[in-house]
């Protein structure tokens, strides 16, 4: 299945596009422009096909691993080599960008990786080694293989100085939204477990906020904030204005609330009442019960809420640029405005990467914080 997709990628669709400059549409080139590297890609796709028909599960898994990670590395080198050969004797403004074929090839590779994944639950070492090798090969392609000549890399060179500050702005914005969401969300969730009225109000209101489109919420916040900062100069002095970081940060905090409040509430209220009764009966005070029993048991679910919130916030943070914040969203929307695909990618790919990293890291944290006795 994955190999089929990969095959479609290398045969039907254009592999690379050569363009006169970074904005105009280009001319499509097939993978054979990469010369000998193309044969390696073909070979690995063939291994991918074999991985479906080989005799034992172990061999199949090995074949799909080899072709999956191998394809990542080989594609990087093939793209680099083709870029070099295309750019020989061309104008400096010339750009070579990745064609749809490369993306489809990589999607096929991901599918190969996924389908092998279930049989490949080996040791940590066995799982990490191919990943490290593939990353190393891609990095090497940047240094020696000509991959640094593709247009995305060129775009990055041009934007390098602002890129890092925008990335920093992105992390700061989503991080502070998450922090504020925790600061308010956990106590609210706790309060909701102690009081029925509070529960329906808090869960209802955060639920409605969650349904409101993020851009609309941002818009709804800007006008009142602008009025507020005009009316109260102190607020303006500390940076609360209609335009800038304040509306974005408030919107992100509000969005973070629902997952955090709900999971705190559910986590705390799912603690077995018999456990609470036993704790009280043994003479624990309500604080001791909360810290030593209820929170430890609810913690995995709370972290799960934080994970949901962080993935959400990393995406929505891009929209806060409309209210004057500066982060990776600037690259995306500038790119959309200029019809510059490479600029869009330069903004969107790191955003996706951040979201996936946050997801993986917080899932791992959640597992680590799950007390051993209640681990499934």
């Amino acid at each position, binding site marked *: 299945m994955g190999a089929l997709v990969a095959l479609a990628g290398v045969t039907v669709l254009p592999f690379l596009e050569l363009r006169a400059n970074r904005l105009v549409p280009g001319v499509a080139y097939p993978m054979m422009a990469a010369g000998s590297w193309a044969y390696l890609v073909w070979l690995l796709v063939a291994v991918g096909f074999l991985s479906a028909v080989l005799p034992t599960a172990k061999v199949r898994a090995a074949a799909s691993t080899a072709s999956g990670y191998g394809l990542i590395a080989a594609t990087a080198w093939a793209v680099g080599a083709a870029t070099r050969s295309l750019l020989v004797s061309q104008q400096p403004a010339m750009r070579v960008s990745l064609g749809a074929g490369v993306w489809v090839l990589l999607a096929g590779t991901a599918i190969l990786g996924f389908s092998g994944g279930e049989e490949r639950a080996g040791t940590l070492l066995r799982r990490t080694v191919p990943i490290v090798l593939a990353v190393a090969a891609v990095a090497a392609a940047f240094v020696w293989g000509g991959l640094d000549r593709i247009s995305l890399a060129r775009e990055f060179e041009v934007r390098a100085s602002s890129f890092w500050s925008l990335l920093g702005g992105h992390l700061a914005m989503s991080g502070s939204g998450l922090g504020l969401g925790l600061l308010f969300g956990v106590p609210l969730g706790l309060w909701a477990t102690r009081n029925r009225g509070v529960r329906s109000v808090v869960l209802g209101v955060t639920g409605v906020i969650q349904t409101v489109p993020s851009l609309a919420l941002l818009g709804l916040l800007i006008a009142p904030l602008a009025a507020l900062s005009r009316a109260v100069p102190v607020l303006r002095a500390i940076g609360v204005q209609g335009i800038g970081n304040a509306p974005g940060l408030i919107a992100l905090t509000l969005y973070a609330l629902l997952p955090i409040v709900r999971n705190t509430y559910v986590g705390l209220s799912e603690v077995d009442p018999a456990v609470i*009764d036993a704790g009280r009966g043994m003479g624990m005070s309500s604080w001791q019960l909360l810290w030593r*029993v209820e929170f430890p048991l609810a913690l995995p679910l709370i972290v799960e809420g934080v994970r949901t919130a962080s993935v959400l916030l990393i995406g929505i943070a891009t929209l806060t640029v409309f209210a004057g914040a500066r982060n990776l969203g600037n690259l995306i929307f500038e790119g959309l405005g200029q019809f510059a695909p490479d600029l869009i990618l330069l903004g969107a790919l790191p955003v996706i990467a951040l979201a996936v990293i946050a997801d993986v890291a917080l899932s791992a944290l959640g597992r680590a914080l799950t007390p051993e006795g209640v681990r499934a």
Partner: protein
Amino acid sequence: MIRLEDVTRRYGDKTAVDSLSLEVAEGEVCVLIGPSGCGKTTTLRMINRLIEPTSGHIFVGDRDILSMPAEELRRGLGYVIQSIGLFPHLDVAANICVVPRLLGWEKQRMAERVDELLALVGLDPAAYRHKYPRQLSGGEAQRVGVARALAADPPVLLMDEPFGAVDPLNRERLQAEFARIQRELKKTVIFVTHDIDEAIRLADKVAIMRDGKLQQFNTPEEVLNHPANKFVHDFVGADRALKRLVRVRVADVMRSPVTVLADADPISLQEAAGRRRFAYVVQPDGRLLGWLDTRSLAEGTRPAAAMTQMDVAEASVRPDDSLRDALSRMLGLGFRSIAVTDKNDVLLGEVTFAAVEDVMTEGDEHVSNQPTEAPE
């Protein structure tokens, strides 16, 4: 040790416990029993102030419990509940040490206490110390629950249907072990159950409740022999005679048996057995081998050749067993008497059907004279 004076608890216009007074002496097991909704659990939970009385006074030792902080009170009262309420995120040792930790014990002392208590409740400390609650069977978890309640050596134990969720076979075993532990530790115990057999088996005093009112408060023997009213009479059930057997230990009614040595010569054998028809055949060290019918004994044969061999474990009882166990064993084997042995199969005595009958009919004349209407 524990005194309730005119204690009442109301919920709205419903009275759960109605001016209840009772006194439990130090080292006594007081079983609160009655149909569901009779107020027995409410009474128990008022003693550790998980429920506050509407009016009345409760004294533990000579202190009015309302005059001391609830948490301090509870740390001095062991508490065991039906659903056990072990903390799922803590291992067995940490569960047992909840109260010692609240009291600030030293690590070394806690570790020693854990091993001591696990051994006491019949669990191997090395095997169980670091297990988690979900790895325990129902019976094991309840033993840990009892160990946890005993951790800080409280003088009083409050037990709310502690064996209610355990299967019947394990329940009997747990009851027997509880009786053994109690003989050893002499705690003052308030024990709530709805199982009249359990009450009669374990109680020094039984408090029978109905609709929040105390119906009768006396020893199990008195309750069986002289039910205070029709409600108690019906609640105790028609098999009072059988229940009485639960209260009597084999050791209390056994008599010395007729024995012959396995290699005794035939003449002395005839003499020894002259008074009774059946004789037990033992080895010189007292271990039981079998029995023989002296009338069918042919001249000149030695006992070892004429006796019927016995599976001693199957066909004998221990001094600590109840008369009911002895009776059911006799009925099962079709014997009119049964041997009493120690754990090394050494013959200690025998219990006859006649002796069992005597105990069963002991109080019957009183019962038949009881008024059939309950005095209010």
